């Protein structure tokens, strides 16, 4: 029979049959998910979107106090407050992407269990709507940046700051990649969820957020820089504040890691999404 079928459902799909074009067909859905995330997140709260600002602000204040004033960790000669904030803003975005996407299947099992749409739309929407947090937090960072600049602190913007969009996209990809790997595994093993919360906070210490990579011994520097988030944060800080290290070589490796993680994530997610209703 030479009939043209729209859809053919068979038990096994090829591993690399990712159906990414479907994501494009459902782009309106991604957009609506983003809108939903944003408008429901702060409904019936008093401070509303102000929470976006409060979290990094207080984190930074605490870090300035504990690591800067008490422990007196060196900050590459930069104002401590700005130094920590420049690390916190991208790191918070990463941790938000990771933890937000890591429970995609479990959180959405209600909807996923009833209708079919490309499952990847949900984590992608999460990553994009988290981007809005980032935008607000970045604006706050810019505010403090200008304040310190006017006060005559020793900070300067370098051309690397122009790489910011690229760096942010990479953070999103990395967070999405790790997030969907974890969410694929949590359909079966719930204990990974517990791992995410504290894993992310441990990971922060393996990333130069509260310390500068320039203070590390060469050996430790290599190890820390193999963490894909490290070069991103270092470059970000160097770009905006003009001090620290510019590990471009490790940034290349970081991109390779990102690509591999995201690819593995999408493949795994795709494999799990078909039958996850039976195990979730």
């Amino acid at each position, binding site marked *: 029979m030479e009939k043209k079928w729209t*859809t053919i459902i068979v038990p096994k799909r090829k591993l690399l049959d990712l159906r990414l074009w479907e994501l494009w067909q459902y782009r309106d859905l991604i957009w609506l998910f983003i809108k939903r995330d944003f408008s429901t997140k702060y409904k019936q709260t008093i401070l509303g979107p102000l929470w976006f600002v409060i979290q990094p602000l207080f984190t930074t204040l605490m870090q300035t106090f504990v690591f800067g004033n008490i422990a007196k960790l060196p900050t590459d000669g930069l104002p401590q407050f700005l130094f920590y904030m420049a690390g916190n803003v991208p790191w918070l975005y990463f941790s938000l992407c990771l933890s937000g996407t890591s429970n995609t299947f479990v959180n959405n099992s209600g909807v996923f269990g009833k209708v*079919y749409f490309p499952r990847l739309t949900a984590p992608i929407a999460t990553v994009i709507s988290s981007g809005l947090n980032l935008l607000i937090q970045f604006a706050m960072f810019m505010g403090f940046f200008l304040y310190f600049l006017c006060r005559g602190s020793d900070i300067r913007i370098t051309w690397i700051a122009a790489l910011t969009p690229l760096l942010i996209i990479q953070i999103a990809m990395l967070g999405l990649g790790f997030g969907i790997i974890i969410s694929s595994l949590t359909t079966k093993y719930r204990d990974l969820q517990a791992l995410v919360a504290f894993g992310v906070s441990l990971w922060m210490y393996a990333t130069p957020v509260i310390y500068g990579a320039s203070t590390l011994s060469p050996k430790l520097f290599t190890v820390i820089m193999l963490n894909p988030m490290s070069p991103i944060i270092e470059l970000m800080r160097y770009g905006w504040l003009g001090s620290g290290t510019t590990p471009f070589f490790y940034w290349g490796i970081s991109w390779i890691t990102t690509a591999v993680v995201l690819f593995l994530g999408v493949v795994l997610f795709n494999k799990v999404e078909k039958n996850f209703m039976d195990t979730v």
Partner: protein
Amino acid sequence: MEERDIAIQITGLKKQYRLGVIGGGTLQGDIQSWWARKRGKDDPNRKIGTKKHHKNETFMALDGIDLTVCKGERLGIIGHNGAGKSTLLKILSRVTGPTEGRICIDGRISSMLEVGTGFNPELTGRENIYLNGAILGMNRAEVTGKIDQIIEFSECAQFIDTPVKRYSSGMYVKLAFAVAAHLDSEILVMDEVLAVGDMKFQQKCLGKMGDVSSSEGRTVLYVSHNMNTIRQLCDRCIVLDHGKKVFDGDVEEAISLYSDIKKGNLSAQVDLRDAKRFSTVNTMRSISFVSAAFLGREENCFKQEDRLKLWLKLDSKIDIEQAKIRVGICDMYDRKVASVLCRDIGAIRKGDNEVTLELSFAGLATGTYRGDLIVFDTNEFGTVKEYDIVLEAFYFEMENKLEFTWNQLKWGPVRLPDMNVIR
């Protein structure tokens, strides 16, 4: 053979579920089990006393289904709980994958498996229409083009800008149905969605479904336990039983086949000792029904004018002076329809008691009904004390000779005496 265009073709479809708990549940557990198996030792996570290969026990939810649905057909799917209806729809709507077999689909499928799928309680009705439309595969422009129709159909215009968490469940269904009914998909899959809406809205939906199917040539797959909606909507019906297709064809035949499977006990004398009891009746009851029969009847199919003799046998541990019997009647949808009373069957003494009651079901319209038996007593204040309540004691069918069909869902289960013209 020149035939109508095929919309869905299913060949050898099977779906297997593993019984018991899937996996250990935790990563650590699975690694432990795997490590133990590697070393040829006993699985430390195995429950004591269970066999080693208990993991391999499987259950076939669908066991080789072959089905071809043509374009524009309205196919009903009926069967008991666990027959595989919902699994079939889930596989069709790609929520879960099949274990074996192949399904070819021509056209977009949209499914309404349960009420309010993907509704977000915080969003307003209007926002949810967009969201739900997108989940079901419509793009923004399509929804915008139809939103007025959708709102009008949903009968929620007044509340459309209120968050849906303030909606009643009926309004939820109406809105959900309105969105799905206005989809452009060629195939529409529905699983018991109409159960919550009120009768008027149900009828409206069925009408709409019939319309889209006949005028736009859309294919409808409909699962329900409500035979009347099946009758109204479908032009073909399949019966599933234990994952297999046992019937495919005419709607009425399918329904009668399904009802037969369900009734099972149309025999003359019924043993009531182990019958289903109402939850408040305990096993230590002082009076209990032992058996019941309609005397002189070969089959439980009654006419309006029939005078029936219901013989009952009761076992009692106490003495009662003035026992009362009630026969409660329910229709096929579990709705209480009527009751027949005997206000004094005389005294009940310790031991076996037998009583024969004369009754008639005149007034019940055509259809299948279920009888419950209750023995009770009242004190001087009129308080009812129920000794035994047997549910589903017997099933019976009412024949009603009319030159047209009595639509029980629309007209009700009670047919009062016909009206006369006074000159």
